């Protein structure tokens, strides 16, 4: 394996790790509006947070199990789709997470100021 490939792989691993941490926040924020899985994926991708189906659906199930989302199977365009939206608990957690995120962002900005 060449050095540049190794460096690319290292970068890709760290990039994914960095994004993985922020995915629940992005999903919760996007689900202030009701979506089914595929349109949620497209919405996130359009806003620069592409997420594959193998990551999104298990994450949605986990968030639902934790009571942060509610879901409902409904027919749309003659097809059954599962629609998700934020639960009241989810709204409150989202608020707290956003505060935390802003604080992390501010701290990182401070750390990065001379880079």
């Amino acid at each position, binding site marked *: 394996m060449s050095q540049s490939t190794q460096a690319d792989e290292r970068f890709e691993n760290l990039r994914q790790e960095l994004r993985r941490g922020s995915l629940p926040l992005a999903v919760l924020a996007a689900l202030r509006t009701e979506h*089914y*899985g*595929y349109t949620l*994926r497209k919405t996130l991708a359009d806003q620069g947070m592409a997420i*594959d*189906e*193998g*990551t999104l*659906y*298990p994450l949605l*199930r986990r968030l639902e199990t934790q009571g942060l989302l509610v879901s409902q*199977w409904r027919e749309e365009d003659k*097809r*059954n*789709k*599962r629609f998700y939206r934020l639960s009241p608990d989810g709204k409150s957690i989202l608020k707290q997470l956003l505060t935390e995120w802003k604080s992390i962002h501010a701290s990182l900005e401070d750390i990065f100021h001379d880079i």
Partner: protein
Amino acid sequence: MQLVDRYLQAVKFWLPRSEKNDIIAELAEDLRSQIEDRESEVGRKLSDADVEAILKRCGPPMAVAGRYLPQRYLIGPALFPIYRVVIRSLVFYFLLPWLLLWTGISIFSPDFRADHPGAALFASLEPWWLACTYSLFLNTLVFALLDRSGLRAHMVDDWNPRSLPAIRDPNHISRAGTVIELTVAVATLTLWVQLDAYRRMFHALGVTITLSSRWPYFFWALVLLSLAGIGLAGFNLLNPRWTRFSASLRLGVDVYTWGLVFWIFRANLLQSLNASSLSSSEAIEAVRSLNIWLANSALWVVAIGVVVLAFDVRRILRVPPTK
């Protein structure tokens, strides 16, 4: 769509029964939406190759299903480091030496090859395979059970910084160890001289043992070894840290020790045996068998000696050079 259905069926196989249908319905809807979007983009129905590309990007069925399952492990991260140390010790200090010894015996011992000709030579490895299987299986089982029992909390979670081991200095020579070494060397030398071991004939319990004419060389070699041991232990007592010099001395003494033991095993030192209960032919056979057994066991000496010397060399390499 047959490819999609086959893909979904493969994912479904690995999913928990209670959630299978729900997960598959949702995944199917996503894949169909992807296909429809792609068809609108290219303005035609997708070929099997196009669908295959979408499914490949989606990931292998087992991996996709795995993401829906809770993270589970046989031995958790708290106990895994101990498990790893135990397995490594088992492999490096038991299974690997056994295999090396077997290889050595197979290569160098004509008697062993004669007893196990052809494929039977490999069949003689059966105990080794069994030992591998049982030891690895039992260790894994014990750790998996420990991980699920309350003992784990006692072993790993209930800890106190004060009960951690003292800082280990690998270059420190334990005074107690040196004193034991010194005592053993002095005791051996005293016993050796007091027993008058220089002579070649010994009488005990009605048995007379006569050793070969090479025995006196061994007598002096052991005296020299004891004196070297006393010298090294004395030096270590005064300088209780390994230096390149003392570590090299230790290597020298160990090379000499294991060379001497190997020589003893291979030298056919037993010349004759006389006992009232043994006929002369029985005594000759007993002497022959004993010498052969010792000669064959010399490979064990080599195996142990190599391990000891490897540690000695490692110690020399570890010690920082004196400035």
